[in-house]
């Protein structure tokens, strides 16, 4: 299968650092009740995250990007495929294995309001991972909590307060602190800055970048906002309806999108420059998608694709590797050679 060969080529190179996370042909299907076919939330996705690397998952709602993150964390059952973490298969890890894994694999969620328990102090929340893994004394725990709070730019006395007393940006800092309490290798960042205001978003993005440099963290960065993903990721995967339509070096995908969907996505994001945006609008108006139902056997994007050919409606394109290392690029499109 070409989909998996793409990831093999990414991870198989001898010089590349070993993969922290490797996802192979991952599928997550959800039952939709009697008489409905299962929803293919994730449909044969493969990728790897290496040490110190940020891999971005981009896509609109329903693209399956968050489901992939939840599957890696063991919060969603996996239908097919294999997820390995530092070489160990964790696809259907037992609770005990998961618990041990939790010191190395962590998460920051999108909603800083729901991700902290309002009834528990910040100190209690941050000490929680320590209780599970390293039974440290009260004084030592308090010290580590205070040190981590200072590291994410919060006052140490925040430990005695409740989430309700903090703003969204501060809460997101606290959520990041919780994820880093046990010095993990990989942090799943599920839309970590989407709920934040622009000036706060920049602060948190800088914090994530600093922490990565300092702690050699790997991130699986899930977001819908292309500029945000572009800024923080080394490589990106563009997802649509549970499938990878394009993957590659973040800068290359952003500057020279190959798949019509990636192009549409980039063209749709309004540019904060009135003159450039006027030009972009004019060019976008020319390439308008004709509405129609999605094709069950063909390309998942065919019904919205401006360049659609007959073949696209009947035959699903495989993810083809266009460029090898060091700037890998893979695209799932029949017309990839004819595209502008």
């Amino acid at each position, binding site marked *: 299968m070409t989909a998996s060969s793409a990831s093999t080529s990414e991870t198989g190179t001898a010089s590349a650092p070993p993969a922290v996370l490797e996802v192979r042909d991952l599928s997550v299907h959800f039952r939709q009740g009697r008489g409905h076919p299962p929803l293919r939330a994730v449909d044969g996705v493969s990728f790897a995250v290496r040490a110190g690397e940020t891999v971005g998952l981009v896509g*609109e709602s329903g693209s399956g990007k968050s489901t992939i993150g*939840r599957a890696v*964390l*063991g*919060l969603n059952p996996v239908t097919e495929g294999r997820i390995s973490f530092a070489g160990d298969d964790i696809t259907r890890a037992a*609770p005990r294995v*998961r618990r041990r894994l*939790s*010191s190395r694999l*962590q*998460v920051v*969620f999108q909603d800083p309001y*729901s*991700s902290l*328990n*309002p*009834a*528990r*102090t910040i100190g209690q929340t941050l000490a*929680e991972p320590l*209780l*599970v*893994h390293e039974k440290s004394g009260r004084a030592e725990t308090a010290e580590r909590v205070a040190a981590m709070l200072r590291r994410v730019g919060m*006052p140490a*006395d925040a430990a*005695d*307060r*409740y*989430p*309700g*007393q903090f*703003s*969204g940006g501060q809460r997101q800092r606290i959520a990041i602190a919780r994820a880093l309490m046990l010095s993990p290798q990989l942090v799943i960042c599920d839309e970590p800055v989407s709920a934040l*205001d*622009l*000036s*706060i*978003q*920049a*602060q948190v*993005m*800088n914090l994530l*970048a*600093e922490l990565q440099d300092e702690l050699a963290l790997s991130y699986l960065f899930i977001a819908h*906002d*292309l*500029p945000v993903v572009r*800024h923080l990721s080394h490589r990106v995967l563009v997802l649509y309806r549970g499938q990878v339509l394009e993957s590659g070096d973040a*800068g290359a995908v952003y500057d020279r999108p190959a798949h019509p969907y990636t192009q*549409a996505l980039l*063209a749709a*994001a*309004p*540019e*904060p*420059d009135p003159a450039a*945006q006027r030009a972009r*609008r004019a060019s976008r*108006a020319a390439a308008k998608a004709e*509405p129609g139902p999605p094709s069950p056997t063909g390309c998942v994007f065919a019904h919205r694709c401006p360049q659609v050919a007959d073949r696209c409606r009947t035959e699903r394109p495989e993810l083809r590797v266009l460029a090898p290392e060091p700037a890998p690029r893979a695209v799932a499109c029949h017309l990839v050679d004819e595209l502008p």
Partner: protein
Amino acid sequence: MGMDNAKKTRQGLARRVLRRPAAVIAVAWLVLLVAATTAAPLFTSYGALEQDLGNVLEGPSADHLLGTDVLGRDLLSRLLFGGRSTLVAVAEALAVFLVIGVTLGLLAGYRGGWVDWLVTRGADLMFALPGIVIVLVVLSVFPGNLHAAMITFGILGAPGLIRILRAQTLTIREELFVAAAKVAGLTHGQILRRHVLPRMASIIIVQGALFAAIVVTIQAGLGFLGLGAQPPEPSWGGLVADASQSIDRAPWMLVPAGVPMVLTVVALGLLGDAIRDAAIENWAVSRSSSAQPGGRPAERIPAQRAAADDAVAAPAPDALLSVRDLTIEIGGLRVVDGVSLDVAPGETVGLVGESGCGKSVTSLGILGLIPGGGRITGGRVVFDGVDVAGAPEAMARIRGTGIAYVSQEPMVALDPTYAVGRQLAEAVRTHRRCDRKGAHARALELLDLVHIPDPAAVARRYLHQLSGGMAQRVAIALALAGEPRLLIADEPTTALDVTVQAEILGLLREIQERTGMAVLLVTHDWGVVADLCRRAVVMYAGQVVEQADVDGMFAHPLHPYTGGLMAANPHHAVHGEALPTIPGTVPAPYEWPSGCRFAARCDRATEECAAAPVPLSLPVPGRSTRCIHVGSLLQEGGLR
């Protein structure tokens, strides 16, 4: 403030409960009751069964503080010794009620699946049983055994608690902090104990207190019927029974028999409420009230008006909407402070800022729909030459036909119980005179106007059958029903996917071209501003800080906040370099300084900035800014 909060947190629950006067009284009564009944011999010199046939049915006296009954027994001693069985009964029934209710409620909600099915069905079955009959059956099997009766009663009461806690757990189970705890490696038991149970504390306490109060009366009822403690053993129910037999000769007896019971029931209720309030007061306070210790009253903030503001104080004669010096207070706190802006016919104006800057409240103020009991305390809102601020009737007249509104959440604008077409037709008929058929035809026309494919089919659909983008289109169609001359759109595309956002923005532009409608677009997204707006008004901390044509503002922002906000946009980021940021956060209304409100976050701030309110100045024709460093900004050609 941090110190205060820390101190408050560390204070024990008991101290926090006892800060409440009602709780003090309730606790005092219950402590007295428990102490007096357990140590009854210390409080009374008479035995509960000691008869004194020379002094029967007496009122209170020095010898018998609460009088005597028909056999001359001391009522105080009977009350105290009888109270023991009441307390034991309450403790037993409550323990059974809580253990079963909490365990099964949490288990059913958290585990779901067949466990949930079994527990819920079991609870349903228990509800169908006639409680008092079951208790009587138990008492007939174990005659006079109050323990058995109370345990049974605890079991019979538990299904109510099970159902409440199950529903709560179902909600909490889906919260992200539970997912985060799972990822942190906590076991299910730890998650339930640390995350689920604390959120339920208030419900459990209130339900427990209510149940305890019911047990007191039920236990007394059983005693009254002679089913509890067997005479001559004392019990509260037995006291009532004795009193009722002598009610014509000694009505006083009802007082010692009944009053303690009433007081106990009331005390349990009060204590339950107090503990609940105290248990959650640390975290269950709204941000605005918690973070505002002696917040500065709005009156003392000087209205920041100066010479330059006066220059534009008169409404613009050719504007469709002209807002002047609009000031809005919510809960006595000024949240919008002297905002002035104009929207010309057919023009699109962006109202830009971060959350907490007052842009949404300003837009709702224009419509006269300020949330949270807020009101306009100053300024003018002139629409089409008529000042509608503080004139609810005039405002109501222009709403819909003059000014329409689209919010971020189309789901809120639409009624889920009516088909889309019917809602649209109804809106059409409130604005223009036409028959049912005409309104329906117009509704289909509106759906077509917002590019809904197959309007006739969509008109028959309900809200839940629409995608987010489709629902926003319908919400826009609804807003267009009254053929408004101005549309206020509050973050109309923020909740939508980027490709859908592009379609909605294109749609708004097209409608404007076709109908000549003006748009006031509230947004935080510079891309959206660049795409749709001709002019932009930037708000910060309740004030307008900059106003300019979009090209000019993007090329040369003349306020450090505008420039900082634009630079923080990752669109312009250089990969591998830190994003330019604005340190700190937007100050809350009670934190507004008297000088420049942005000074604390501004890298250009000087002493002068904090000294006095900064007026709006007009450095360039058609542009205004609220910065005293505008001269140097102009020389540098803006900030970027």
